[in-house]
């Protein structure tokens, strides 16, 4: 059930990633799949995080026209790194998680560019777009967690009154 829920969530996030730019172009910079991967890496087990990263990366590869495995490799690596650190460094709250997600986005872009260079492929990404992507993803993370926290507290207050 948990796997199915995460699979559906990833599918939804993948679709969200392709559609949000239609609504408002700056939203296209947000890496919604990475937010999910970082969330799982900070809270779940190492194995779960790595598998989720792989699936999310593969989905992103499938939805984009890039080399299949590129984002899979990058997101799996990021999930592994964050999951490793999360065992001795607890990161909670919208702002710290936003910073971690922003750094993860920068790392992912670095890994992707490194692979493209190694594979002899051309790439058309600039420092500005990489930074923009990292900032947008970090801001989206902060926004999502703020809303989630508010909803959680509201539900908690209601259940206390009942």
């Amino acid at each position: 059930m948990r796997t199915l829920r995460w699979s559906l969530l990833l599918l939804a996030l993948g679709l969200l990633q392709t559609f949000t730019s239609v609504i408002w172009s700056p939203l296209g910079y947000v890496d919604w799949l990475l937010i999910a991967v970082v969330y799982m890496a900070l809270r779940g087990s190492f194995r779960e995080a790595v598998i989720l990263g792989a699936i999310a990366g593969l989905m992103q590869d499938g939805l984009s026209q890039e080399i299949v495995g590129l984002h899979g490799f990058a997101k799996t690596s990021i999930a592994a790194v964050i999951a490793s650190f999360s065992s001795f460094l607890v990161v909670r709250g919208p702002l710290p998680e936003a910073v971690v997600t922003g750094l993860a986005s920068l790392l992912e872009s670095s890994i992707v560019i490194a692979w493209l260079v190694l594979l002899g492929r051309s790439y058309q990404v600039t420092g500005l777009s990489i930074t923009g992507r990292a900032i947008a993803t970090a801001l989206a993370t902060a926004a999502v967690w703020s809303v989630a926290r508010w909803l959680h507290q509201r539900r908690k207050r209601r259940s206390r009154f009942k």
Partner: protein
Amino acid sequence: MEMFGRNAGSIAILAGLLLGFFILMSYQVNRTETVSAVEGTVHTLTSPAHRAVSAVWLTLTGTWQRYMGLVGASSQSSRMRERNAVLERENSALQEAARENARLRQLLGLRERIASPSLAGEVIGREISHGYQGLTVNRGSWDGAQRDSAVVAPNGALVGRVVQVTATSALVQTLTDPESAVGAKVVRSDARGVVHGVGGAILELAYVNSLEDVENGDLVVTSGDDGLYPAGIPIGRVNRVAPGAPVPDSPPVPLARGEGALFLEISLNPLVEVRQVDYVLLLRPLTNGE
């Protein structure tokens, strides 16, 4: 090391995945196909959802755009209605101005035709009750209005007579007032009588000898016999002629016209609808010898 030892299985999975991705990427580098099996699988999995979301999105945006279009159309329609109302008001005002202009021209023409001095005035009040029918004109003694002045409409027809003058206005007794009486004659036959109101919109020509020649459609004008109204002002047209009440001791019926009755019963349609008169001319009252 301890951590890695505990998660040897996870490390193995990670290593396997990374190696798999590496092989996958290396495999694709020298291939020319643009769509790999993985891409195809992902697209196959995501395309129904993609299509559904796309359809929902297109429906939503289409609905939104139509809604915005309707809002825009509604707003434009509202503006057009307001504009239309303004134009209608302007058009109405222009038409009224044109009508007023025509009436004033008519009045001016009439004033030039009439030999006696006259004073143009505007009707500012109407009083039509059971016992009295009158108009108030915005000309008074300060303007030169005088009691007993004949009042005529822009088309030259008689409206009535000034019965009271204040400093700034004059009260006119109309022809249709039952108390009004005007010396009149039939233009065609010169039959003479007295025109007076009967309380409604029509007039009565009384005291016309039953032997006189009067027919429907005959024009009746002022005769000047009463010393109040100048002669020749049109009053109305005959619309009904009937023998009057028989004289007592006259021969039994059937009676030929004129037999047994002193006067004819004659109804007139006035040439002017006094309730609709807006402008009038006040003629200088007749003095002895005029």
